[in-house]
């Protein structure tokens, strides 16, 4: 019973990781840059979510607003911050991204105050009992179902629509994609929009789960998502999903049974290092 509960909790955590890491993987696949500042959109999503929900009383409106605003923000970051330095060696965008993230975190603190915000209304706080013994918050179910649906729809769009196929082609070989009339800029826009919107969705859901947004809420996801996309084989969407869920479950058990030896972050990274030493291309990468 405990075993099942731990798995379930791991999957909840894993689906949050997946939502954040997917955006990162889309960006990495396309541009080969580690977009650390991605986590800022997770935080931004949380803040917009709380503010819109407190104004309108509607969580749906909050989610939509957060996703759209974060998506547009993502496009701006792509065009203004990354596009001009894409031809530089990889550490340049990496450090730029880190700088951007630190600045963003500080902006959140200065604008919204250091102690964070909470929801005025209780959204999805009711309890649900499944199979007689698995007890969840409605928000936890919503996170799992929401991410499953969103990711499912996305992968359908990616394989079934021309734009989706164009994006995949661009990730596979950007130059050739251009040679068939696909504009890198447009694909970049789409990837950043989608990725940032996903992160924002995760941000809203996490803020509902914790009933709190704070300026630093993105810092753990930011580096954990990096670990996940590496495990997933950098740029592989399916690998990222699997890695996120696996990491969620490993952490779930780890906090209980290894908590006295290593903290949660260290567990995640110990796992990461072991895997990389064993399979340097990542856990789920095709070789």
């Amino acid at each position, binding site marked *: 019973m405990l075993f099942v509960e731990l798995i379930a909790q791991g999957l909840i955590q894993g689906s949050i990781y997946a939502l954040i890491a997917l955006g990162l993987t889309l960006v990495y696949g396309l541009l080969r840059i580690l977009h650390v500042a991605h986590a800022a959109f997770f935080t931004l999503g949380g803040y917009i979510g709380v503010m819109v929900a407190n104004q309108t009383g509607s969580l749906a409106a909050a989610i939509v607003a957060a996703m759209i605003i974060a998506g547009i923000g993502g496009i701006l970051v792509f065009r203004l911050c990354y596009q001009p330095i894409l031809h530089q060696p990889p550490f340049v965008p990496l450090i730029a991204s880190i700088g951007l993230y630190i600045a963003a975190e500080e902006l959140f603190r200065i604008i919204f105050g*250091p102690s964070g915000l*909470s929801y005025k209304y209780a959204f999805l706080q009711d309890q649900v009992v499944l199979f007689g013994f698995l007890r969840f918050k409605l928000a936890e179910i919503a996170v799992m179902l929401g991410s499953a649906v969103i990711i499912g729809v996305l992968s359908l769009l990616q394989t079934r629509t021309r734009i989706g196929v164009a994006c995949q082609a661009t990730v596979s070989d950007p130059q050739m994609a251009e040679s068939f009339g696909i504009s890198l800029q447009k694909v970049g826009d789409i990837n950043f929009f989608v990725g940032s919107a996903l992160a924002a969705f995760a941000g809203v859901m996490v803020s509902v789960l914790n009933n709190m947004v704070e300026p630093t809420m993105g810092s753990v996801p930011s580096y954990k998502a990096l670990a996940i996309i590496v495990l997933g084989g950098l740029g592989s969407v399916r690998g990222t999903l699997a890695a996120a869920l696996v990491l969620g479950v490993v952490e779930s058990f780890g906090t209980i049974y290894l908590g006295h030896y290593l903290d949660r972050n260290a567990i995640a990274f110990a796992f990461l290092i072991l895997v990389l030493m064993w399979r340097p291309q990542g856990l789920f990468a095709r070789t």
Partner: protein
Amino acid sequence: MNHKKLAVAVTAALAMQFGVPAWAEVKIGINVPLTGFAAADGKSALDGAKLAVADANAKGGINGEKIELVIYDDQASPKEAAPAATKLIEKDKVVAGVSGSYSASTRAAAPLFQAAKVPYVVAYSIHPDVTLAGNYVFRTATMGEVQGRAGAKLSSTLGKKNVVLITLKNDFGQALAAGYKEAAPKFGVKIINEYEYGIRDRQFGALISKVKSDNPELIYASGYYFTAGPLVNQLRAAGITVPVIGQEGYDSEKFIEIAGAASEGTLVTTSLDRDSDSPVTQAFLKEFRAATNAGADMVAASTFTATSIAIEGLKKTGGKGGEALRKAIETGTFSTPIGKLTFNDLHEVNKDVQVQIVKGKAFHRHSVISDPVLLAPPTKAK
């Protein structure tokens, strides 16, 4: 008015006579984390300190001289705190220092104040090493171990035997757990399991599943409001209804806001009693709300207290720092929002522990633990 002006003029004339810089303000230095992960507490602390200074200045300052608060951000990091302390002492020549920061930064700063013989009043950092730096360092907070012992006593008062500890993995949480574990056997309290979590953790699902299977009668969980809020909320959502005891880290309106309805009934061992009939406490609570439009929390109250103690001491010495001020604080008794305080020979504070309970979305008095033996802070001998 005229009296005051005259007094000022006379003081000034006298000061010129003796070649003392005439309009020198009395400077008190404070290090607080205004940026970085502890920024929220830093803001509260600074608000508390500013209020104490404003209060004192409104009442005429020290011998008519205005008090100036010199503020440095230490990001709660020892690396930033050390230069900040040196600068306060060297450049700003403060007569007294106040720590409105966490243990790591305070521990880095304390030896510097000690070496310069500038009294340093520490508000809410709870690490034992702080006062070991020397006899110029004072602490107004109840040490972690002491609070932990109070928690164990409270558990037995509630008639609970089987307890699960959920410990925040930093110096604050570990000190609390150590105190709790030390005192638990004395009160017949059994610790059936202990879990640890990191200060960045907000999701406790896995941990809570395990706690549920332990089936405890009470949960003693250390944390700050930003970890405790989600923790208590998630405990309740998982259907765990046993009492939760927290500590002064919970002591913020933000805790109630974040945990929502789940916060009801949470017990907190702290130093601020909202229902106290002490006029000092009530005045502080009122003024703080007026000044910041927010309710005071433990951090604000403690930093207000620490700053006030420095000011009270300075009033006694007539603005002189150094050894005179040290002695004044050492021997004084202070009426503060967190009760009447005196310091022991290690400059730890002697005071009762307040137990507050969340009722109707606010902290209210539950009980007071006053057990001088149990709550005795460490002394020099120890």
